């Protein structure tokens, strides 16, 4: 593996003189370039899909994963004291970013779907809720429960685990969809580039035969072809990648899909990911052409 890779470096830099012996144009060239471009184009989309679903999944997961609620049941006269106690506990709990008792209006809004807007909250002995926003590390739910039990016996921690589950499941599904797509496209891209390079090489059997007959060494012939096809795959993949990235920018079609296309785009540093595609295509082409060239040569003397 290491030997061919160091060869790869030498390959891209030099020995352009041997280049002339490989037919420069024709359909075999177009084929390799186009196959790489197509596969790179699809790969950009798969990548965008996978990153976008990942993002979506994160958003869904986080929305609930990073929040919890503390429910305080207490006689009306002790309520404020308990709330204070809970807020103080939370202030010293690691993992808590923000803690805030819900106002009556907020609590009323939460209950509205079931009880209507006219609920006399102040007259009801209902519990008060404290919303807890966790930071990245998250809280230690069991530890917090223990402290609450000791210091504010009416307070119960609800970390939403039960509510989170179906959403997290959906998110996981979406994310795995992205990975399946990217694995599938990558594999097929490898196969298609390999096939195109081998096919192109088979079309050049006559060239290989002539070169061998006039005294060219195997390494010379292989290098000339490998260099040419590696660069072609790289170039094709680069074009495909750029086109794919441009397509992600396209003005969204009218209608609700517009919103989705926007969601499919890449964000910030994610735009760097597609840049890995052309080198990957080149690497695949390098090994594929090398193998094809050496095995075509084996048949000739």
């Amino acid at each position: 593996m290491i030997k061919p890779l160091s060869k790869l470096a030498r390959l891209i830099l030099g020995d352009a003189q041997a280049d002339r012996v490989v037919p420069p144009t024709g359909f075999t060239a177009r084929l390799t370039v186009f196959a790489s471009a197509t596969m790179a184009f699809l790969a950009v989309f798969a990548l965008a899909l996978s990153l976008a679903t990942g993002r979506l999944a994160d958003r869904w997961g986080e929305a609930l994963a990073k929040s919890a609620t503390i429910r305080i049941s207490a006689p009306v006269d002790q309520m404020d004291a308990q709330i204070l106690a809970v807020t103080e506990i939370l202030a010293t709990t690691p993992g808590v970013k923000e803690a805030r008792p819900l106002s009556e209006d907020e609590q009323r809004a939460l209950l509205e779907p079931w009880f209507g807007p006219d609920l006399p909250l102040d007259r009801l002995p209902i519990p008060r809720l404290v919303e807890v926003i966790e930071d990245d590390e998250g809280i230690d739910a069991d530890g917090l429960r223990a402290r609450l039990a000791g210091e504010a016996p009416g307070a119960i921690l609800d970390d939403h685990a039960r509510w989170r589950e179906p959403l997290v499941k959906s998110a996981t599904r979406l994310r795995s969809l992205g990975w399946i797509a990217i694995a599938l496209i990558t594999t097929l891209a490898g196969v298609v580039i390999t096939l195109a390079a081998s096919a192109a090489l088979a079309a050049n059997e006559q060239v290989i035969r002539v070169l061998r007959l006039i005294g060219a060494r195997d390494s010379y012939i292989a290098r000339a072809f490998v260099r040419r096809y590696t660069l072609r795959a790289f170039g094709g993949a680069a074009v495909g990648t750029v086109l794919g990235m441009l397509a992600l920018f396209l003005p969204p079609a009218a209608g609700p899909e517009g919103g989705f296309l926007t969601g499919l785009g890449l964000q910030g540093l994610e735009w760097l990911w597609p840049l890995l595609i052309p080198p990957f295509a080149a690497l695949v082409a390098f090994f594929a052409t090398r193998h094809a060239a050496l095995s075509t040569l084996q048949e000739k003397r």
Partner: protein
Amino acid sequence: MIELEQVAYGYGTGTLLSGVTMSLAQGSFHFLTGPSGAGKTTLMKLCYGELVAEQGKVELFDKNVSEMQRDDVANVRRRIGVVHQDCQFLNHLSLAENVMLPLTVSGRSLHDPSELQELLTWVGLDRQQAAKPPELSGGERQRAALARAVIMSPDVILADEPTGNVDWEMSLRLLQLLVELNRMGKTVMIATHDMNLIRSAKSQVQARVLRISNHQVAVAGANL
């Protein structure tokens, strides 16, 4: 330079050559004749290592072909100039580039670039230098093949039917080139059907005529 000892070969469809013993000494000049399909091209291929003898031993420059590494074969071919019967060119390169190809692949170049011009002029292709092989006439391709075979001044020149498609005057000119190279010490073998060419050569150099018949190679006498 090239030694065959009790060599046998067949393409799987029966014996084509058997018990062939032959030696091309340095500076010798040979013709190879025999009816069409007798195995002249096959014998040539054995002589530059494209085919490997089924039986017997082929030695090129004192090395046994069947024991050679692939790179050895390549190296040996740099010392043997071959005119293939079905002239093999790279169609995307110009005539001049094709003729230079043996030098290109061995990383060498001509000492004197004017040598190429001289050679092309001799074989009458100076005006076609930039043409691609498919744009050449049959005879022009054959002459280009000869030019390619001699460009790197090989020790041995094997020419398979080098004059099949050229007129008599040109044939003599090409023969003269080979005779000249032979005088400079190169070993030459020409496969041909053209008895007039052989007669004409015999008046210039001491040429031996080998004839393939009955799967064997024999030296033909004075009577062609």
